[in-house]
Every structure is written in structure tokens, then in C-alpha cells.
């Protein structure tokens, strides 16, 4: 299995707060060593590795994770807690997942 984390640099050059938060959580929970590489989606540079991956996989949220396994379709995770639960097999509460989903999808509650 090969795991790529894509983190974002905003158009003004500042780091993405959510990406930093996810990195901190990975580190605190000793999961960072399970990530094979971290690449940057720089909104100022459409040719940055992360932006190319985002376009390739039709992703419009950051951070996100690309999970590649031999003989299997590449899997994309935009919800951190879902990634942690399904790929890293760590315990996650439904409340944590839902909160993250709502934070990322600010108009989901308009349904």
C-alpha cells in the first residue's frame, strides 16, 4: 500500500489550517509514519504535484489522501476520520466523522 497525503497552500501563500490540523493529529496519534509521502497542492501553481493529483482524481477539498494498492483501484479520501478508520484501522466515532464532513461541506445542511 502506498499512501500520499496532499496538503494545500492557499493563493496568498499561507498554509491551509485544516491541513496543519490533520498533520498535527497524525503526529499526535503516531500515524504520520504510515504516510509514504506528503505533496503540496499550491493554489498559485496549477502544475504543483498536489494540484495535478486533485485534478486527476476530481477532488476539490484539501487535505486529501490517495491510497494505492497493487491490483486495486486507487482510493481517494477527503474525510480524514474516514481515512483513519478505513485505511489505518484506527477507532473513530461517528460524531467525529460527521463534524468533519460538515466542516468541509458548508452547505450540506441546506439539503
Amino acid at each position, binding site marked *: 500500500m502506498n499512501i500520499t497525503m496532499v496538503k494545500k497552500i492557499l493563493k496568498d501563500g499561507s498554509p*491551509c489550517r485544516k491541513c496543519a490540523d490533520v498533520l498535527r493529529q497524525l503526529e499526535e496519534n503516531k500515524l504520520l509514519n504510515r504516510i509514504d509521502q506528503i505533496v503540496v497542492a499550491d493554489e498559485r501553481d496549477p502544475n504543483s504535484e498536489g494540484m495535478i493529483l*486533485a485534478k486527476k482524481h476530481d477532488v476539490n477539498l484539501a487535505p486529501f489522501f490517495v491510497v494505492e494498492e497493487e491490483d486495486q483501484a486507487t482510493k481517494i479520501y477527503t474525510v480524514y476520520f474516514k481515512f483513519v478508520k478505513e485505511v489505518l484501522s484506527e477507532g473513530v466515532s461517528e460524531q467525529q466523522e460527521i463534524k468533519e464532513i460538515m466542516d468541509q461541506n458548508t452547505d450540506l445542511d*441546506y439539503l
Partner: protein
Amino acid sequence: MNAVTFDVAKLADEYKDKTPSEILSLAIEHFEKLSISFSGAEDVVLIDMAVKIKPDIKIFSLDTGRLNPETYQFIEQVRKHYSINIDVMSPDSKQLETFVHEKGLYSFYKDGHQECCGIRKVMPLRRILSTLDAWITGQRQDQSPDTRSGLPVIQKDNTFSSGDHTLVKFNPLSFWTSMQVWQYIRNNDVPFNALHSMGFSSIGCEPCTRPILPNQHEREGRWWWEEATKKECGLHLDNDKN
């Protein structure tokens, strides 16, 4: 065809100028496990269009337990008018009871609506979406210039897809305006929620929805006590388009 073999990017581009009915036809033609999300508001136009293509199309609605009486009456009216079944999804009773026990019935006025919406709306939504390969929403770009401006007519739903389950989302009304929706409703004698006649535009739960004044944006009728915050997690790929 399932969601994995459906070429979302290619079809989204191909269908961006097609009519909502043509987009619905594509969805119906390709996906068996497909359902329309019906909010009890003006997205009823999707039902009107879809039943003309597939009379027994699946439809679901999220009953938060806090909707206006008019919305419940309207959902029932739609069910009868089109002779359709509507899967009315309810919140998990245990989670809801725990939440209300701890926070009361109006916690959203104090600490925001997210937790309540999470339990009453998003969890049931996730439950029904886990049974589908594709879903159809009435979301439109003009509903929110901040968060829906790039809404495509077809997209892979990365939020509710999981490692072994790909979900596709259709937004046939993405490029329609509110005016077009209401022209359709009037021209086709489509039933509508009585709240619209009382000044309500965007309709949600009773405690969190209010009528708006002329020239107010429809979003101003929802969660008006909360400060608008900007979405930070989006990746702005539009600068990559030719």
C-alpha cells in the same frame, strides 16, 4: 453501469449545457441504485421531471423531526400527487435522545446548528447514501455564490464515497436560476410548499428558517443568528482551466 465505470469528468463536461431532464435521463439510464433527495421545497421540480421519465423513481426526504407542518403536508401532497413512494429518513433515536438530553431542544441558538444538523440530517443522509450508487439533488449555483459557484451537473461524491463504494451525485438544476425553477413550477402546475407563499425562500427546519424580505438573499432566511463563515477547505481548481 456502476459508479466506478461511469466517466464523471467526461460526462459532466458533455452535459453541462443539457437540460435538467436530459441530465435526469442520463442518471436514470445508468444507475439502478439511484434516488432523488427531496427537501420539501422547490426541488419538487426534479420529481415532476423524473416521474415523466421513470414513474417509479426512488425518492428520499430527510425528516429532522423539526420541519414546519406545511413541509410535512407538502411531502404528503407530493406523494399523493405523483403516486410515488418517498423514503422518509429519520434520525437515529438513541443518538437524538442523548443529544436532546444533554443539550436541550434549542442548543443551536447558543452553540451553532452543526451538531443538531449532524444528528438530524447528515447521519440519516449518510445512511441512505450508503445504499445508493448515485443520487440527485436540487442544488443550484445561484443558491450560494460562495460555496456553490462551481457546482457541476455531475460529480463524484467524494464526501460520501468510501474505499469500496463510489457514489455519483447529479445536480441537474445547477445552472438554473430561481426564476427558471419558478417558471417551471407555474408553467407545469407543479405543487409547491405553502411556506413559499408566506415569504419563505430556502426552507429547512422550523426553528432555523424564517421568511425573507424583498431583495434579501435566500440564505438570509437560514441560521440568521450565526456569523457567515467562509469555506476554507476548497481547492480552487478553476485557475487551472483553459
